[in-house]
């Protein structure tokens, strides 16, 4: 009685197999973009890589490409410092915003605040840079000398990545099954404990993803950091010392760079990609295993 039904050719399977193949194609395409980007940067960086021995990029006396000095070390340090501070700040405010929206705020207020974050995510870095330049820097300058400093760069960059981290964190917190939260509250756990002990671990994979996106945005930001960071090539010895990140360096000098100077900028682009890879591997390795799939 089943014969006629069971033996019908496996047409359904064909659709799923075809879908699976197209998806692998699409994912392959998406992940090959980074290869093309690195290839473009590498071809442009070739003249400098050949002309200047690699170690010189780390122990040249200073960064003055027109006088053949290509020391990138201070800028790499600057990038780590500014991005690290910004990610710490952004994660703190982003997670607190997510907790506020998901657990503490009345729904209407939560919706409103989400709107604010979505708009903040859309403000061009030029406007944020200008605001930093005209209002934030004078305030920091009032505290200590130039005002263009690691502090102002970290504050502006932190502000920029709060929406990215906050919105993704909200999405992952909202996908935590209600039964978990209700179970915790049924036990009379105070709200803060429920959030930190039950909701966060359950949404851990989403939260890690939001921080990783934040790191990406922090390392990649160019315009705003260039305007408020001061762009002095030095390892900043204090929070108030000016700093130049690798991304800001490229944006600052690429329009007027010639020959070896231009390709040395692309070498710093390669270094930046390396920094990103290192930071991500640390995040992947440090990030604890997500509890449930």
């Amino acid at each position: 009685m089943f014969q006629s039904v069971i033996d019908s050719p496996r047409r359904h399977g064909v659709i799923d197999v075809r879908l699976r193949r197209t998806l692998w194609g699409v994912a392959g395409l998406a992940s090959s973009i980074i290869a093309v980007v690195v290839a473009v940067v590498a071809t442009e960086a070739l003249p400098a890589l050949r002309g200047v021995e690699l170690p010189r990029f780390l122990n040249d006396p200073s960064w003055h490409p027109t006088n053949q000095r290509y020391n990138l070390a201070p800028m790499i340090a600057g990038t780590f410092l500014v991005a690290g501070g910004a990610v710490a700040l952004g994660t703190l405010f982003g997670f607190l915003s997510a907790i506020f929206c998901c657990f503490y705020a009345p729904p209407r207020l939560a919706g409103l605040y989400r709107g604010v974050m979505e708009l903040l995510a859309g403000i061009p870095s030029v406007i944020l840079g200008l605001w930093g330049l005209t209002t934030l820097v004078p305030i920091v300058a009032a505290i200590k000398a130039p005002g263009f400093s690691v502090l102002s760069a970290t504050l502006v960059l932190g502000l920029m990545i709060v929406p990215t981290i906050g919105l993704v964190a909200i999405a992952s917190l909202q996908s935590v099954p209600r039964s978990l939260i209700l179970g915790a509250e049924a036990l009379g756990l105070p709200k803060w404990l429920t959030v930190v002990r039950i909701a966060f671990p359950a949404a851990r994979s989403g939260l890690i993803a939001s921080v990783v996106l934040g790191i990406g945005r922090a390392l990649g930001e160019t315009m705003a950091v260039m305007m408020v960071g001061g762009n002095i090539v030095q390892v900043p010895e204090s929070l108030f010392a000016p700093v130049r990140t690798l991304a800001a360096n490229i944006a600052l000098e690429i329009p007027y760079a010639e020959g070896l100077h231009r390709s040395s900028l692309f070498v710093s682009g390669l270094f930046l990609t390396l920094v990103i890879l290192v930071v991500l591997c640390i995040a992947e390795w440090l990030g604890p295993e997500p509890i449930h799939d």
Partner: protein
Amino acid sequence: MIRAISFPFRKGRSFLALSVMALLSVAASAHAAETIVLTGSSTVAPLMAEIGKRFEETHPNLRIDVQTGGSSRGVRDARAGLADIGMVSRPLTDSERDLTAFTLAYDGVAFILHKSNPVKTLTRQQIIDIFTGKVRDWSEIGPGRGTIVVENKAEGRSTLELFLTHFDIKSSDVKAAVVVGDNQEAIKVIAGNPLAIGYVSIGSAVTEAGLGVPIKPLPMDGVEATIDAVKQKRFPLVRELNLVVRKQPEGVVKEFIAYAQSDQVTDLVKDLYYVPVGH
């Protein structure tokens, strides 16, 4: 029934391929109208865009695309033929002898201080000492107190090159507290910091000061920093804004360059506070 599900899938794909081909063929035709492409310095681009628009009014089927990307890109694209005309905000260096340059306008470079800074003028030696870090506090100059915030331009910028050659310092000797890229950004930095000193194009400085931005240009070697001083060639620090072309221009490109240097566009040049070539 099951067969029905997969049928639209196959037909959908062929339709997609067809529409992509159609899009590309339409695109090819759209570019028939003649185009002049200019790339280069973002300081010259606004001026050339306006000149281009006015030139287009008298040449209906001509399109002038002005793109930015910096002087070095202007030189590279002009040499490689990617752009018909390159825009450079500095005189050609000796390595660029293969290109021919047409000066479009002049632009003075002056030192600017915050409006509240009591200092009225600075001698050549004082400027060298400030920028090389020998002098650190305004009190060592004259009226006024507080550590000097020195603002320098990024590597390769034309105003930096002009400054270094005029005061013959090497870029590695300059001790700056902040490095900026464009003139407008430099002005905003000075406006935000009463103790700052920097050098920018006179046109921008005069305009912004006129609009109430708290900055003041300093006279140099006794010549006051105004656009007229540059026009009468009395001002020492002047840079030229050039259009560069690989081989001798001919046809509509030649006509356009001549038009850009003619006095039919002096009002546009003045509108961006540069000094026209003609006088």
